[in-house]
Protein backbone atom coordinates (compact mmCIF):
# COMPACT_ATOMS: atom_id res chain seq x y z
CA UNK A 1 0.00 0.00 0.00
CA UNK A 2 3.05 2.27 -0.22
CA UNK A 3 4.43 3.55 -3.59
CA UNK A 4 3.85 7.19 -4.34
CA UNK A 5 3.35 9.67 -1.55
CA UNK A 6 0.47 12.01 -2.04
CA UNK A 7 2.88 14.88 -2.06
CA UNK A 8 4.39 13.69 -5.31
CA UNK A 9 1.31 12.97 -7.39
CA UNK A 10 2.39 12.85 -11.02
CA UNK A 11 1.59 15.79 -13.27
CA UNK A 12 -1.17 15.25 -15.83
CA UNK A 13 0.00 14.08 -19.27
CA UNK A 14 0.10 16.63 -22.10
CA UNK A 15 -3.04 16.16 -24.20
CA UNK A 16 -2.81 13.99 -27.30
CA UNK A 17 -3.44 15.68 -30.64
CA UNK A 18 -7.06 15.29 -31.67
CA UNK A 19 -6.39 13.10 -34.68
CA UNK A 20 -4.29 10.69 -32.63
CA UNK A 21 -7.05 10.37 -30.10
CA UNK A 22 -9.55 9.79 -32.87
CA UNK A 23 -7.41 7.12 -34.40
CA UNK A 24 -6.94 5.33 -31.12
CA UNK A 25 -10.68 5.42 -30.43
CA UNK A 26 -11.35 4.10 -33.94
CA UNK A 27 -8.98 1.20 -33.57
CA UNK A 28 -10.54 0.30 -30.25
CA UNK A 29 -14.01 0.22 -31.68
CA UNK A 30 -14.61 -3.35 -32.71
CA UNK A 31 -17.54 -2.69 -35.01
CA UNK A 32 -15.68 0.00 -36.86
CA UNK A 33 -12.67 -2.22 -37.43
CA UNK A 34 -14.70 -5.19 -38.62
CA UNK A 35 -16.82 -3.01 -40.88
CA UNK A 36 -13.79 -1.34 -42.40
CA UNK A 37 -12.16 -4.68 -43.08
CA UNK A 38 -15.26 -6.00 -44.82
CA UNK A 39 -15.64 -2.83 -46.81
CA UNK A 40 -12.00 -2.80 -47.79
CA UNK A 41 -12.14 -6.40 -48.95
CA UNK A 42 -15.20 -5.82 -51.09
CA UNK A 43 -13.82 -2.58 -52.47
CA UNK A 44 -10.59 -4.31 -53.41
CA UNK A 45 -12.48 -7.17 -54.98
CA UNK A 46 -14.47 -4.69 -57.02
CA UNK A 47 -11.41 -2.72 -57.99
CA UNK A 48 -9.43 -5.71 -59.10
CA UNK A 49 -12.38 -7.57 -60.57
CA UNK A 50 -10.93 -7.79 -64.06
CA UNK A 51 -7.83 -9.48 -62.68
CA UNK A 52 -9.55 -11.61 -60.06
CA UNK A 53 -12.34 -12.98 -62.22
CA UNK A 54 -11.56 -16.38 -63.67
CA UNK A 55 -13.99 -15.81 -66.56
CA UNK A 56 -15.77 -13.11 -68.48
CA UNK A 57 -18.95 -12.33 -66.57
CA UNK A 58 -20.86 -11.90 -69.76
CA UNK A 59 -19.70 -15.05 -71.46
CA UNK A 60 -22.59 -17.43 -71.87
CA UNK A 61 -22.19 -21.13 -72.29
CA UNK A 62 -25.40 -23.07 -72.44
CA UNK A 63 -23.62 -26.37 -71.95
CA UNK A 64 -22.44 -25.21 -68.55
CA UNK A 65 -25.78 -24.11 -67.14
CA UNK A 66 -26.47 -24.18 -63.45
CA UNK A 67 -23.38 -25.96 -62.28
CA UNK A 68 -23.29 -25.96 -58.47
CA UNK A 69 -20.41 -24.38 -56.54
CA UNK A 70 -17.17 -26.27 -56.12
CA UNK A 71 -18.01 -27.74 -52.73
CA UNK A 72 -21.02 -29.62 -54.03
CA UNK A 73 -20.68 -33.10 -55.50
CA UNK A 74 -21.36 -32.03 -59.06
CA UNK A 75 -19.34 -28.86 -58.82
CA UNK A 76 -16.00 -28.20 -60.41
CA UNK A 77 -13.05 -25.96 -59.61
CA UNK A 78 -13.45 -24.44 -63.02
CA UNK A 79 -16.39 -22.50 -61.68
CA UNK A 80 -15.75 -21.91 -57.99
CA UNK A 81 -19.20 -20.60 -57.26
CA UNK A 82 -21.01 -22.38 -60.02
CA UNK A 83 -22.81 -20.89 -63.00
CA UNK A 84 -26.16 -19.28 -63.58
CA UNK A 85 -28.95 -20.16 -65.94
CA UNK A 86 -27.07 -18.92 -68.96
CA UNK A 87 -23.84 -20.63 -68.05
CA UNK A 88 -22.07 -17.50 -66.89
CA UNK A 89 -19.50 -17.91 -64.14
CA UNK A 90 -21.01 -16.86 -60.83
CA UNK A 91 -17.84 -15.75 -59.15
CA UNK A 92 -16.99 -13.40 -61.97
CA UNK A 93 -20.48 -11.96 -61.99
CA UNK A 94 -20.28 -11.54 -58.26
CA UNK A 95 -17.04 -9.59 -58.48
CA UNK A 96 -18.34 -7.33 -61.22
CA UNK A 97 -21.59 -6.99 -59.33
CA UNK A 98 -19.59 -5.50 -56.48
CA UNK A 99 -18.57 -2.72 -58.84
CA UNK A 100 -22.19 -2.01 -59.70
CA UNK A 101 -23.29 -1.90 -56.08
CA UNK A 102 -20.40 0.23 -54.90
CA UNK A 103 -20.69 2.59 -57.84
CA UNK A 104 -24.38 3.07 -57.30
CA UNK A 105 -23.90 3.53 -53.58
CA UNK A 106 -21.23 6.17 -54.01
CA UNK A 107 -22.89 8.01 -56.87
CA UNK A 108 -26.26 8.12 -55.13
CA UNK A 109 -24.72 9.23 -51.86
CA UNK A 110 -22.94 11.99 -53.72
CA UNK A 111 -26.02 13.30 -55.50
CA UNK A 112 -28.39 13.01 -52.57
CA UNK A 113 -25.67 14.40 -50.33
CA UNK A 114 -25.30 17.48 -52.47
CA UNK A 115 -29.02 18.10 -52.63
CA UNK A 116 -29.67 17.34 -48.97
CA UNK A 117 -26.70 19.24 -47.60
CA UNK A 118 -27.50 22.33 -49.62
CA UNK A 119 -31.07 22.33 -48.42
CA UNK A 120 -30.10 21.56 -44.83
CA UNK A 121 -27.39 24.18 -44.59
CA UNK A 122 -29.53 26.90 -46.11
CA UNK A 123 -32.42 26.03 -43.84
CA UNK A 124 -30.24 25.90 -40.75
CA UNK A 125 -28.27 29.02 -41.52
CA UNK A 126 -31.01 31.37 -42.66
CA UNK A 127 -33.81 30.01 -40.55
CA UNK A 128 -37.15 31.76 -40.85
CA UNK A 129 -38.99 31.29 -44.10
CA UNK A 130 -36.22 29.36 -45.82
CA UNK A 131 -36.29 26.91 -42.96
CA UNK A 132 -40.06 26.64 -43.09
CA UNK A 133 -40.03 25.89 -46.80
CA UNK A 134 -37.26 23.32 -46.55
CA UNK A 135 -38.85 21.63 -43.56
CA UNK A 136 -42.09 21.41 -45.46
CA UNK A 137 -40.39 19.86 -48.47
CA UNK A 138 -38.67 17.36 -46.22
CA UNK A 139 -41.93 16.43 -44.52
CA UNK A 140 -43.57 15.93 -47.89
CA UNK A 141 -40.73 13.81 -49.14
CA UNK A 142 -40.88 11.74 -45.95
CA UNK A 143 -44.57 11.13 -46.57
CA UNK A 144 -43.88 9.58 -49.95
CA UNK A 145 -43.56 5.81 -50.08
CA UNK A 146 -40.11 5.73 -51.62
CA UNK A 147 -40.16 2.23 -53.01
CA UNK A 148 -43.47 2.73 -54.78
CA UNK A 149 -42.56 6.08 -56.24
CA UNK A 150 -39.20 4.78 -57.42
CA UNK A 151 -40.88 1.78 -59.00
CA UNK A 152 -43.52 3.86 -60.70
CA UNK A 153 -41.05 6.28 -62.15
CA UNK A 154 -38.61 3.61 -63.21
CA UNK A 155 -41.45 1.87 -64.99
CA UNK A 156 -42.31 4.99 -66.89
CA UNK A 157 -38.82 6.04 -67.80
CA UNK A 158 -37.36 2.60 -68.22
CA UNK A 159 -34.89 1.02 -65.83
CA UNK A 160 -31.16 1.33 -66.23
CA UNK A 161 -28.09 2.05 -64.16
CA UNK A 162 -28.22 5.76 -64.89
CA UNK A 163 -31.91 6.00 -64.14
CA UNK A 164 -31.46 4.23 -60.83
CA UNK A 165 -28.73 6.59 -59.76
CA UNK A 166 -30.62 9.72 -60.71
CA UNK A 167 -33.87 8.47 -59.22
CA UNK A 168 -32.38 7.40 -55.90
CA UNK A 169 -30.27 10.52 -55.76
CA UNK A 170 -33.41 12.60 -56.09
CA UNK A 171 -35.23 10.61 -53.44
CA UNK A 172 -32.74 9.83 -50.67
CA UNK A 173 -31.58 13.27 -49.63
CA UNK A 174 -33.90 13.63 -46.64
CA UNK A 175 -31.58 12.47 -43.90
CA UNK A 176 -28.78 14.65 -45.22
CA UNK A 177 -31.07 17.64 -45.04
CA UNK A 178 -32.29 16.86 -41.53
CA UNK A 179 -28.87 16.25 -40.07
CA UNK A 180 -27.10 19.19 -41.71
CA UNK A 181 -29.96 21.47 -40.77
CA UNK A 182 -29.73 20.73 -37.08
CA UNK A 183 -25.92 20.74 -37.13
CA UNK A 184 -25.91 24.09 -38.90
CA UNK A 185 -28.37 25.50 -36.42
CA UNK A 186 -26.06 24.53 -33.62
CA UNK A 187 -23.00 26.00 -35.27
CA UNK A 188 -24.68 29.09 -36.61
CA UNK A 189 -24.12 31.06 -33.45
CA UNK A 190 -20.64 29.77 -32.78
CA UNK A 191 -17.85 32.19 -32.27
CA UNK A 192 -15.79 31.34 -35.28
CA UNK A 193 -18.72 32.16 -37.53
CA UNK A 194 -19.18 35.48 -35.82
CA UNK A 195 -15.47 36.11 -36.17
CA UNK A 196 -15.59 35.40 -39.89
CA UNK A 197 -18.52 37.72 -40.31
CA UNK A 198 -16.72 40.41 -38.39
CA UNK A 199 -13.86 40.09 -40.83
CA UNK A 200 -16.27 40.80 -43.64
CA UNK A 201 -16.41 37.32 -45.11
CA UNK A 202 -19.14 36.76 -47.67
CA UNK A 203 -21.87 34.27 -46.93
CA UNK A 204 -20.80 31.67 -49.51
CA UNK A 205 -17.33 31.82 -48.03
CA UNK A 206 -18.64 31.30 -44.51
CA UNK A 207 -20.82 28.43 -45.59
CA UNK A 208 -18.19 26.66 -47.58
CA UNK A 209 -14.95 27.33 -45.76
CA UNK A 210 -16.06 27.73 -42.15
CA UNK A 211 -19.27 25.80 -41.71
CA UNK A 212 -18.89 22.85 -44.02
CA UNK A 213 -15.66 21.43 -42.60
CA UNK A 214 -17.32 21.24 -39.21
CA UNK A 215 -20.22 19.30 -40.62
CA UNK A 216 -17.93 16.71 -42.13
CA UNK A 217 -18.07 14.14 -39.38
CA UNK A 218 -21.86 14.14 -39.25
CA UNK A 219 -22.00 14.12 -43.04
CA UNK A 220 -19.73 11.11 -43.34
CA UNK A 221 -21.92 9.15 -40.97
CA UNK A 222 -25.07 9.98 -42.90
CA UNK A 223 -23.35 9.33 -46.21
CA UNK A 224 -22.41 5.81 -45.21
CA UNK A 225 -25.90 5.04 -44.02
CA UNK A 226 -27.50 6.43 -47.16
CA UNK A 227 -25.03 4.47 -49.28
CA UNK A 228 -26.25 1.30 -47.64
CA UNK A 229 -29.81 2.42 -48.14
CA UNK A 230 -29.21 3.10 -51.83
CA UNK A 231 -27.53 -0.23 -52.37
CA UNK A 232 -30.46 -2.07 -50.83
CA UNK A 233 -32.94 -0.08 -52.86
CA UNK A 234 -31.10 -0.68 -56.09
CA UNK A 235 -31.04 -4.37 -55.32
CA UNK A 236 -34.77 -4.27 -54.71
CA UNK A 237 -35.44 -2.39 -57.92
CA UNK A 238 -33.24 -4.72 -59.92
CA UNK A 239 -34.89 -7.70 -58.29
CA UNK A 240 -38.24 -6.44 -59.51
CA UNK A 241 -36.82 -5.85 -62.96
CA UNK A 242 -36.87 -2.10 -62.92
CA UNK A 243 -33.33 -1.40 -61.93
CA UNK A 244 -30.16 -2.36 -63.65
CA UNK A 245 -30.98 -4.31 -66.77
CA UNK A 246 -29.49 -7.62 -67.87
CA UNK A 247 -26.88 -8.57 -68.86
CA UNK A 248 -25.18 -6.15 -66.42
CA UNK A 249 -24.36 -8.09 -63.26
CA UNK A 250 -26.20 -6.62 -60.30
CA UNK A 251 -26.57 -8.68 -57.20
CA UNK A 252 -30.26 -7.94 -56.97
CA UNK A 253 -30.70 -8.92 -60.58
CA UNK A 254 -28.84 -12.14 -59.95
CA UNK A 255 -31.30 -13.05 -57.23
CA UNK A 256 -34.18 -12.30 -59.58
CA UNK A 257 -32.68 -14.39 -62.33
CA UNK A 258 -32.16 -17.23 -59.95
CA UNK A 259 -35.60 -17.11 -58.40
CA UNK A 260 -37.09 -19.58 -60.82
CA UNK A 261 -34.44 -22.15 -59.94
CA UNK A 262 -34.15 -21.53 -56.26
CA UNK A 263 -35.95 -24.65 -55.15
CA UNK A 264 -33.40 -26.98 -56.67
CA UNK A 265 -30.38 -24.74 -56.96
CA UNK A 266 -30.62 -22.62 -53.85
CA UNK A 267 -27.11 -21.25 -54.09
CA UNK A 268 -28.22 -19.16 -57.03
CA UNK A 269 -30.07 -16.82 -54.70
CA UNK A 270 -28.26 -17.47 -51.45
CA UNK A 271 -24.82 -16.34 -52.60
CA UNK A 272 -25.68 -12.90 -54.00
CA UNK A 273 -27.90 -12.25 -50.98
CA UNK A 274 -25.13 -13.09 -48.57
CA UNK A 275 -22.63 -10.76 -50.22
CA UNK A 276 -25.24 -8.03 -50.39
CA UNK A 277 -25.89 -8.43 -46.68
CA UNK A 278 -22.13 -8.44 -46.04
CA UNK A 279 -21.61 -5.23 -47.96
CA UNK A 280 -24.48 -3.46 -46.23
CA UNK A 281 -23.32 -4.83 -42.89
CA UNK A 282 -19.83 -3.48 -43.49
CA UNK A 283 -21.13 -0.06 -44.43
CA UNK A 284 -23.51 0.07 -41.47
CA UNK A 285 -20.78 -0.98 -39.05
CA UNK A 286 -18.52 1.73 -40.37
CA UNK A 287 -21.29 4.30 -40.20
CA UNK A 288 -22.31 3.37 -36.66
CA UNK A 289 -18.70 3.15 -35.61
CA UNK A 290 -17.93 6.59 -36.98
CA UNK A 291 -20.92 7.97 -35.17
CA UNK A 292 -19.76 6.44 -31.89
CA UNK A 293 -16.20 7.59 -32.31
CA UNK A 294 -17.05 11.16 -33.26
CA UNK A 295 -19.71 11.53 -30.61
CA UNK A 296 -18.89 14.10 -27.93
CA UNK A 297 -16.99 12.63 -24.98
CA UNK A 298 -18.98 11.44 -22.06
CA UNK A 299 -21.23 9.38 -24.22
CA UNK A 300 -19.17 6.29 -23.48
Amino acid at each position, binding site marked *: MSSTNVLSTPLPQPPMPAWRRGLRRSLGHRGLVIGSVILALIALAALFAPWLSPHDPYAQDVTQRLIPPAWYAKGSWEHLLGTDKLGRDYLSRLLYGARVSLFIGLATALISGLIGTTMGVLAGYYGGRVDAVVSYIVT*TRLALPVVLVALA*MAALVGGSLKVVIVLLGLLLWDRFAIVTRSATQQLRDAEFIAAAKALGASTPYILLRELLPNLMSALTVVATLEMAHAILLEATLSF*LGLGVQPPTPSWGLMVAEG*KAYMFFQPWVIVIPGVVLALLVLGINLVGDGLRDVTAPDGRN
Partner: protein
Amino acid sequence: MLSYVFRRLLVGFSVMLTVAVVSFMLLHLSGDLATAIAGPESSAADVEKVRVQYGLDRPMVTQFGDWLGAAVRLDFGRSFYFQNTVMELVGERLPVTLKLGGIALLLAVVVAIPLGVLAAIYRDSWVDRFSLLVAVVGQAMPNFWFALTLILVFAVGLKWLPVAGNTSWQHFVLPAVALGYYAMPSLMRLTRAGMLDVLGSDYIRTARAKGLSPARVVFKHALRNAIIPVMALAAVELGFMLGGSVVIESVYSLQGLGQLAWDSISRNDYPVVQAVVLIIAVFYIGLTFVADVLNAALDPRMRTR
Protein backbone atom coordinates in the same frame (compact mmCIF):
# COMPACT_ATOMS: atom_id res chain seq x y z
CA MET B 1 -51.87 20.33 -26.12
CA LEU B 2 -54.99 20.81 -28.16
CA SER B 3 -53.45 23.61 -30.15
CA TYR B 4 -50.47 21.42 -30.93
CA VAL B 5 -52.73 18.63 -32.16
CA PHE B 6 -54.63 21.08 -34.30
CA ARG B 7 -51.50 22.48 -35.84
CA ARG B 8 -50.13 19.05 -36.63
CA LEU B 9 -53.44 18.11 -38.20
CA LEU B 10 -53.27 21.16 -40.42
CA VAL B 11 -49.74 20.37 -41.48
CA GLY B 12 -50.79 16.79 -42.14
CA PHE B 13 -53.53 17.86 -44.48
CA SER B 14 -51.39 20.24 -46.45
CA VAL B 15 -48.71 17.59 -46.77
CA MET B 16 -51.33 15.18 -48.05
CA LEU B 17 -52.29 17.71 -50.66
CA THR B 18 -48.70 18.27 -51.65
CA VAL B 19 -48.12 14.55 -51.93
CA ALA B 20 -51.12 14.31 -54.21
CA VAL B 21 -49.72 17.05 -56.39
CA VAL B 22 -46.25 15.59 -56.40
CA SER B 23 -47.31 12.06 -57.21
CA PHE B 24 -49.59 13.33 -59.93
CA MET B 25 -46.85 15.40 -61.45
CA LEU B 26 -44.23 12.70 -61.16
CA LEU B 27 -46.38 10.34 -63.11
CA HIS B 28 -47.38 12.80 -65.75
CA LEU B 29 -44.05 14.44 -66.26
CA SER B 30 -41.76 11.47 -66.30
CA GLY B 31 -42.83 10.25 -69.67
CA ASP B 32 -45.60 10.49 -72.13
CA LEU B 33 -48.45 8.65 -70.50
CA ALA B 34 -50.39 8.35 -73.70
CA THR B 35 -47.52 6.50 -75.31
CA ALA B 36 -47.09 4.33 -72.28
CA ILE B 37 -50.75 3.36 -72.29
CA ALA B 38 -51.04 2.86 -75.99
CA GLY B 39 -48.01 0.67 -76.09
CA PRO B 40 -44.63 0.95 -77.81
CA GLU B 41 -45.81 -0.37 -81.12
CA SER B 42 -48.76 1.93 -81.66
CA SER B 43 -48.88 4.45 -84.40
CA ALA B 44 -48.92 8.18 -83.76
CA ALA B 45 -52.61 8.29 -84.55
CA ASP B 46 -53.33 5.63 -81.98
CA VAL B 47 -51.40 7.49 -79.39
CA GLU B 48 -53.39 10.63 -80.19
CA LYS B 49 -56.61 8.73 -79.85
CA VAL B 50 -55.53 7.47 -76.45
CA ARG B 51 -54.54 10.97 -75.45
CA VAL B 52 -57.91 12.38 -76.23
CA GLN B 53 -59.75 9.42 -74.81
CA TYR B 54 -58.15 9.79 -71.41
CA GLY B 55 -58.22 13.55 -71.41
CA LEU B 56 -54.45 13.75 -71.45
CA ASP B 57 -54.51 16.61 -73.93
CA ARG B 58 -56.03 19.01 -71.43
CA PRO B 59 -53.89 21.38 -69.41
CA MET B 60 -52.16 19.75 -66.45
CA VAL B 61 -53.93 21.86 -63.90
CA THR B 62 -57.33 20.84 -65.21
CA GLN B 63 -56.37 17.22 -65.17
CA PHE B 64 -55.15 17.50 -61.63
CA GLY B 65 -58.20 19.43 -60.52
CA ASP B 66 -60.51 16.80 -61.93
CA TRP B 67 -58.57 14.01 -60.43
CA LEU B 68 -58.35 15.61 -57.02
CA GLY B 69 -62.00 16.57 -56.98
CA ALA B 70 -62.95 12.99 -57.66
CA ALA B 71 -60.36 11.62 -55.27
CA VAL B 72 -61.83 13.52 -52.36
CA ARG B 73 -65.04 11.64 -53.03
CA LEU B 74 -62.95 8.47 -53.09
CA ASP B 75 -63.58 8.13 -56.80
CA PHE B 76 -60.31 7.27 -58.42
CA GLY B 77 -61.76 6.33 -61.72
CA ARG B 78 -61.67 3.00 -63.38
CA SER B 79 -58.73 0.71 -63.80
CA PHE B 80 -57.40 0.36 -67.32
CA TYR B 81 -56.75 -3.28 -66.86
CA PHE B 82 -59.63 -4.54 -64.76
CA GLN B 83 -63.23 -3.68 -65.29
CA ASN B 84 -63.75 -2.55 -61.72
CA THR B 85 -63.35 0.89 -60.32
CA VAL B 86 -60.13 1.62 -58.57
CA MET B 87 -61.84 1.91 -55.21
CA GLU B 88 -63.31 -1.56 -55.59
CA LEU B 89 -59.89 -2.96 -56.23
CA VAL B 90 -58.38 -1.04 -53.35
CA GLY B 91 -61.21 -2.12 -51.09
CA GLU B 92 -60.48 -5.75 -51.88
CA ARG B 93 -56.76 -5.52 -51.32
CA LEU B 94 -56.36 -3.05 -48.51
CA PRO B 95 -57.47 -5.37 -45.69
CA VAL B 96 -54.88 -7.94 -46.69
CA THR B 97 -52.09 -5.39 -46.54
CA LEU B 98 -53.30 -3.94 -43.27
CA LYS B 99 -53.50 -7.39 -41.77
CA LEU B 100 -50.00 -8.14 -42.97
CA GLY B 101 -48.64 -4.88 -41.66
CA GLY B 102 -50.36 -5.29 -38.33
CA ILE B 103 -49.03 -8.79 -37.75
CA ALA B 104 -45.56 -7.76 -38.92
CA LEU B 105 -45.49 -4.86 -36.51
CA LEU B 106 -46.76 -7.03 -33.70
CA LEU B 107 -44.05 -9.60 -34.28
CA ALA B 108 -41.39 -6.90 -34.44
CA VAL B 109 -42.59 -5.28 -31.21
CA VAL B 110 -42.97 -8.56 -29.34
CA VAL B 111 -39.35 -9.38 -30.06
CA ALA B 112 -37.88 -5.89 -29.90
CA ILE B 113 -39.18 -4.65 -26.56
CA PRO B 114 -38.19 -7.55 -24.30
CA LEU B 115 -34.85 -7.78 -26.06
CA GLY B 116 -34.26 -4.06 -25.61
CA VAL B 117 -35.23 -4.17 -21.95
CA LEU B 118 -32.92 -7.11 -21.27
CA ALA B 119 -30.10 -5.46 -23.18
CA ALA B 120 -30.46 -2.35 -21.07
CA ILE B 121 -30.66 -4.15 -17.74
CA TYR B 122 -27.75 -6.44 -18.50
CA ARG B 123 -25.76 -3.82 -20.30
CA ASP B 124 -22.52 -5.01 -21.88
CA SER B 125 -23.38 -8.62 -21.10
CA TRP B 126 -23.73 -11.32 -23.70
CA VAL B 127 -27.46 -10.58 -23.94
CA ASP B 128 -26.67 -7.02 -24.86
CA ARG B 129 -24.04 -7.95 -27.41
CA PHE B 130 -26.21 -10.64 -28.89
CA SER B 131 -29.14 -8.33 -29.38
CA LEU B 132 -26.94 -5.68 -30.98
CA LEU B 133 -25.57 -8.34 -33.28
CA VAL B 134 -29.05 -9.41 -34.27
CA ALA B 135 -29.96 -5.80 -34.87
CA VAL B 136 -26.97 -5.09 -37.04
CA VAL B 137 -27.31 -8.24 -39.12
CA GLY B 138 -31.05 -7.78 -39.43
CA GLN B 139 -30.70 -4.38 -40.97
CA ALA B 140 -28.17 -5.60 -43.51
CA MET B 141 -30.30 -8.22 -45.19
CA PRO B 142 -32.31 -7.15 -48.23
CA ASN B 143 -35.95 -7.91 -47.57
CA PHE B 144 -36.64 -9.64 -50.86
CA TRP B 145 -33.75 -11.99 -50.27
CA PHE B 146 -34.76 -12.69 -46.70
CA ALA B 147 -38.28 -13.41 -47.92
CA LEU B 148 -37.00 -15.93 -50.44
CA THR B 149 -34.69 -17.53 -47.91
CA LEU B 150 -37.57 -17.92 -45.49
CA ILE B 151 -39.50 -19.72 -48.17
CA LEU B 152 -36.56 -21.97 -48.89
CA VAL B 153 -36.04 -22.89 -45.29
CA PHE B 154 -39.52 -23.05 -43.85
CA ALA B 155 -41.79 -23.77 -46.75
CA VAL B 156 -39.63 -25.98 -48.89
CA GLY B 157 -36.98 -27.34 -46.58
CA LEU B 158 -38.96 -27.89 -43.41
CA LYS B 159 -42.34 -27.80 -45.03
CA TRP B 160 -43.88 -26.10 -42.06
CA LEU B 161 -45.64 -23.29 -43.82
CA PRO B 162 -47.26 -22.67 -47.21
CA VAL B 163 -45.57 -20.74 -49.95
CA ALA B 164 -48.18 -18.49 -51.46
CA GLY B 165 -51.77 -17.34 -51.10
CA ASN B 166 -53.61 -15.55 -48.35
CA THR B 167 -56.42 -17.75 -47.14
CA SER B 168 -55.32 -19.09 -43.78
CA TRP B 169 -53.33 -17.52 -40.99
CA GLN B 170 -50.37 -19.71 -41.80
CA HIS B 171 -50.06 -17.84 -45.04
CA PHE B 172 -49.30 -14.70 -43.14
CA VAL B 173 -46.52 -15.97 -40.91
CA LEU B 174 -43.59 -15.90 -43.31
CA PRO B 175 -44.59 -12.67 -45.03
CA ALA B 176 -45.12 -11.00 -41.66
CA VAL B 177 -41.66 -12.07 -40.53
CA ALA B 178 -40.13 -10.93 -43.81
CA LEU B 179 -41.86 -7.57 -43.54
CA GLY B 180 -41.37 -7.04 -39.83
CA TYR B 181 -37.77 -8.08 -39.26
CA TYR B 182 -36.46 -4.84 -40.69
CA ALA B 183 -38.28 -2.77 -38.11
CA MET B 184 -37.15 -4.91 -35.19
CA PRO B 185 -33.58 -3.54 -34.84
CA SER B 186 -34.54 0.11 -34.66
CA LEU B 187 -37.34 -0.58 -32.19
CA MET B 188 -34.99 -2.67 -30.08
CA ARG B 189 -32.29 -0.03 -30.09
CA LEU B 190 -34.72 2.69 -29.15
CA THR B 191 -36.10 0.58 -26.29
CA ARG B 192 -32.60 -0.12 -25.08
CA ALA B 193 -31.53 3.50 -25.31
CA GLY B 194 -34.71 4.71 -23.66
CA MET B 195 -34.39 2.19 -20.86
CA LEU B 196 -30.73 3.00 -20.27
CA ASP B 197 -31.66 6.64 -20.10
CA VAL B 198 -34.52 6.09 -17.71
CA LEU B 199 -32.71 3.54 -15.56
CA GLY B 200 -30.10 6.17 -14.82
CA SER B 201 -32.61 8.72 -13.63
CA ASP B 202 -33.16 9.84 -10.06
CA TYR B 203 -36.65 8.49 -9.64
CA ILE B 204 -35.45 5.00 -10.43
CA ARG B 205 -32.88 5.42 -7.70
CA THR B 206 -35.68 6.44 -5.37
CA ALA B 207 -37.71 3.39 -6.37
CA ARG B 208 -34.78 1.12 -5.65
CA ALA B 209 -34.14 2.86 -2.33
CA LYS B 210 -37.71 2.07 -1.36
CA GLY B 211 -36.89 -1.60 -1.65
CA LEU B 212 -39.30 -2.31 -4.49
CA SER B 213 -38.67 -5.56 -6.28
CA PRO B 214 -36.44 -5.30 -9.38
CA ALA B 215 -39.30 -6.41 -11.60
CA ARG B 216 -41.50 -3.64 -10.31
CA VAL B 217 -38.77 -1.08 -10.75
CA VAL B 218 -38.23 -2.11 -14.35
CA PHE B 219 -41.77 -2.59 -15.46
CA LYS B 220 -43.74 -0.13 -13.44
CA HIS B 221 -41.31 2.73 -13.17
CA ALA B 222 -38.81 2.42 -15.97
CA LEU B 223 -40.62 0.94 -18.92
CA ARG B 224 -43.63 3.15 -18.52
CA ASN B 225 -41.53 6.21 -19.17
CA ALA B 226 -39.30 4.70 -21.83
CA ILE B 227 -42.01 3.12 -23.94
CA ILE B 228 -43.72 6.11 -25.46
CA PRO B 229 -41.03 7.05 -27.99
CA VAL B 230 -40.93 3.38 -28.93
CA MET B 231 -44.63 3.38 -29.61
CA ALA B 232 -44.24 6.48 -31.71
CA LEU B 233 -41.51 4.82 -33.72
CA ALA B 234 -43.67 1.73 -34.10
CA ALA B 235 -46.36 3.85 -35.71
CA VAL B 236 -43.82 5.26 -38.14
CA GLU B 237 -42.43 1.81 -38.90
CA LEU B 238 -45.93 0.62 -39.72
CA GLY B 239 -46.08 3.35 -42.31
CA PHE B 240 -42.82 2.15 -43.82
CA MET B 241 -44.13 -1.37 -43.87
CA LEU B 242 -47.22 -0.35 -45.77
CA GLY B 243 -45.02 1.30 -48.36
CA GLY B 244 -42.56 -1.56 -48.49
CA SER B 245 -45.15 -4.28 -48.75
CA VAL B 246 -44.76 -4.21 -52.54
CA VAL B 247 -41.83 -6.56 -52.55
CA ILE B 248 -43.05 -8.96 -49.89
CA GLU B 249 -46.49 -9.28 -51.35
CA SER B 250 -45.05 -9.98 -54.79
CA VAL B 251 -42.78 -12.68 -53.47
CA TYR B 252 -45.54 -14.36 -51.50
CA SER B 253 -48.36 -13.65 -53.94
CA LEU B 254 -50.49 -12.11 -51.25
CA GLN B 255 -52.89 -10.12 -53.43
CA GLY B 256 -52.63 -7.11 -51.23
CA LEU B 257 -52.37 -3.42 -51.97
CA GLY B 258 -48.64 -3.63 -52.61
CA GLN B 259 -49.01 -6.33 -55.17
CA LEU B 260 -51.81 -4.39 -56.79
CA ALA B 261 -49.49 -1.43 -57.02
CA TRP B 262 -46.73 -3.50 -58.51
CA ASP B 263 -48.93 -5.18 -61.07
CA SER B 264 -50.45 -1.87 -62.05
CA ILE B 265 -47.04 -0.33 -62.46
CA SER B 266 -46.02 -3.11 -64.77
CA ARG B 267 -49.21 -2.68 -66.73
CA ASN B 268 -49.14 1.09 -66.85
CA ASP B 269 -52.51 1.14 -65.15
CA TYR B 270 -51.89 4.60 -63.89
CA PRO B 271 -55.17 5.48 -62.19
CA VAL B 272 -54.54 2.59 -59.84
CA VAL B 273 -50.92 3.56 -59.31
CA GLN B 274 -51.82 7.13 -58.45
CA ALA B 275 -54.52 6.03 -56.07
CA VAL B 276 -52.34 3.53 -54.26
CA VAL B 277 -49.47 5.97 -53.85
CA LEU B 278 -51.82 8.54 -52.41
CA ILE B 279 -53.55 6.09 -50.09
CA ILE B 280 -50.32 4.75 -48.71
CA ALA B 281 -49.03 8.28 -48.26
CA VAL B 282 -52.22 9.16 -46.40
CA PHE B 283 -51.76 6.22 -44.06
CA TYR B 284 -48.18 7.20 -43.53
CA ILE B 285 -49.06 10.79 -42.75
CA GLY B 286 -51.76 9.62 -40.37
CA LEU B 287 -49.35 7.31 -38.58
CA THR B 288 -46.63 9.94 -38.22
CA PHE B 289 -49.30 12.26 -36.87
CA VAL B 290 -50.16 9.66 -34.24
CA ALA B 291 -46.45 9.32 -33.49
CA ASP B 292 -46.04 13.07 -33.09
CA VAL B 293 -49.01 13.29 -30.75
CA LEU B 294 -47.65 10.41 -28.67
CA ASN B 295 -44.27 12.07 -28.36
CA ALA B 296 -45.84 15.40 -27.50
CA ALA B 297 -48.04 13.83 -24.85
CA LEU B 298 -44.87 12.66 -23.18
CA ASP B 299 -43.50 16.16 -22.89
CA PRO B 300 -44.47 17.30 -19.39
CA ARG B 301 -45.02 20.84 -20.59
CA MET B 302 -48.04 19.64 -22.50
CA ARG B 303 -49.69 17.93 -19.56
CA THR B 304 -52.50 19.18 -17.37
CA ARG B 305 -52.51 22.75 -18.60
